[in-house]
């Protein structure tokens, strides 16, 4: 009672009652501890370059949402898979749009995670004590690339069949370790097994690894900016502000993907025909095409392994505490050469005529 009385006495000095949103926030905070998200992070974390990882995660969520819609209509039986994709495009409500959104979202995810890796590398954010988190990031990039590849196969047109045939050839190169890639393994068609990997196994792994990645970001805190000068500490902002900005950037991303899905719907070629090899892979995988020209299908395996081994080795090679890229010139030059080579190979492959790589010619 006395507390009530005190409350009445102080009421005149309070300007207004809390808004509905404020009451909702307080109510949720009481139950979910949301104010725990208001921990301080450095100001530089609110730049676009430092939001690329968050945007990658948002894109993954968008992929899951649109993927769930597509799974309602996609049939992973290779006898009818192509036809079911055609039906999604031509007959299902919003099917063409959702498929287009999923396609462009996959492209965006590849670009975003690539740029995120590059940003972390250039700013030296992988350095002690964050080496393990870099490794988890590389694993996430690998899972993303595998999600992209398996998604390419599911549409089951000529490009898909040829991608799967390359996958089988690479499985043979792995010897007994490549048993899973054999079409004779499991008793159900390889396409159906890849579908399960695409919609269940890889998203599950991504969710587990990204959870660890985020927990480590929270525990180890954001790395300091290598471009900051002066002895004074960097101003901070609450993490919730970063989340709000991420949400706004996500709106831009969704808008861009929406427009791309409508104006540039992804192609779906004719049903696959065995015995011919007439397509090139989509651009994120195009860089291995010339290597395959030069050294055969094994080139795909070795080139991909080389890139990922190099990424894994980064924190063990660049071990100085120095974060400024200007003082890590050899590493910057090496990374620049790798990126330029990949871009060069993509351009080279794009202007080259198609070539047969599996058992023909």
């Amino acid at each position: 009672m006395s507390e009530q009385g005190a409350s009445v006495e102080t009421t005149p000095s309070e300007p207004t009652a809390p808004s509905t949103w404020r009451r909702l926030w307080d109510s949720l905070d009481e139950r979910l501890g949301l104010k725990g998200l208001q921990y301080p992070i450095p100001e530089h974390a609110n730049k676009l370059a430092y939001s690329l990882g968050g945007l990658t995660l948002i894109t993954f969520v968008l992929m899951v949402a649109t993927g769930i819609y597509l799974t309602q209509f996609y049939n992973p039986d290779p006898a009818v898979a192509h036809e079911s994709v055609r039906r999604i495009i031509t007959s299902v409500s919003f099917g063409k749009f959702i498929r287009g959104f999923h396609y462009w979202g996959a492209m965006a995810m590849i670009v975003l995670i690539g740029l995120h890796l590059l940003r972390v590398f250039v700013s030296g954010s992988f350095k002690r004590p964050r080496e393990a988190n870099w490794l988890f990031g590389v694993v996430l990039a690998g899972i993303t690339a595998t999600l992209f590849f398996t998604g390419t196969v599911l549409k089951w047109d000529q490009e898909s069949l040829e991608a799967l045939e390359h996958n089988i050839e690479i499985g043979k190169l792995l010897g007994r370790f490549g048993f899973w890639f054999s079409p004779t393994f499991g008793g159900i068609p390889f396409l159906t097994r890849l579908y399960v990997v695409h919609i269940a196994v890889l998203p599950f792994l991504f969710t587990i690894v990204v959870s660890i990645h985020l927990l480590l970001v929270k525990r180890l805190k954001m790395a300091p900016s290598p471009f900051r000068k002066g002895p004074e500490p960097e101003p901070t902002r609450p993490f919730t502000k970063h989340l709000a900005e991420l949400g706004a950037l996500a709106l831009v991303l969704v808008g861009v993907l929406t427009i791309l899905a409508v104006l540039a719907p992804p192609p779906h070629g004719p049903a696959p025909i065995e015995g011919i090899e007439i397509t090139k892979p989509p651009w994120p995988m195009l860089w291995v095409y010339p290597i395959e020209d030069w050294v055969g299908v094994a080139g795909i395996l070795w080139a991909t392994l080389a890139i990922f081994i190099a990424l894994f080795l980064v924190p063990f090679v660049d071990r100085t505490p120095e974060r400024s890229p200007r003082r890590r010139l050899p590493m910057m030059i090496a990374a620049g050469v790798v990126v330029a080579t990949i871009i060069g190979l993509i351009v080279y492959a794009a202007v080259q005529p198609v070539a047969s790589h599996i058992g023909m010619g």
Partner: protein
Amino acid sequence: MSEGTHVHRRWLARSLAVVGALALGPASVALAHEGEENVPAITDVQEAIAILAEHPGVFPPAEVAEHAIDKVGDALESNDTRGVLLDLVSEAKDALVAGKTDDALTLLERSIGACPGAPVIEPQDAPRAPPSLSSPCPSVAHIQVLDRTPVGGTEEPVLIAVGAVLILAGLGLVRRIR
């Protein structure tokens, strides 16, 4: 604009310049790639198939046909005609000249033993070496079920408007939050 931002941008510009120069190097090699005299006929046929199957809608039909005719001509003049049924390639050339690109495509696929329209269940069954040219394919039914129509194009102005609104709203919110 802070000194840090200036330094950052200078670095970005230099990096992009270096990456661009290195990227264009190998591409110029590809553009200079010439001389196809001794290319096996099977490669020329596959390239002609690729041109016909993958490029409709990307380039004008006449240009696609012309490019394919060049490749078919190369195949017919090739020194290495192993695994290719040249009679079918000749028929394909006639079909291309007559503007029947679908027929030409099927003939070219058949000329190297592929079976258009046959459902693919497991790639392991694929005849990875050029298959027997006397296989009983395609049947009329196979060819009739071929759906070579490229899927694309759209009329959803509402979705474009929604996308534009989302972009503007997002940019506005970013500006406001900062």
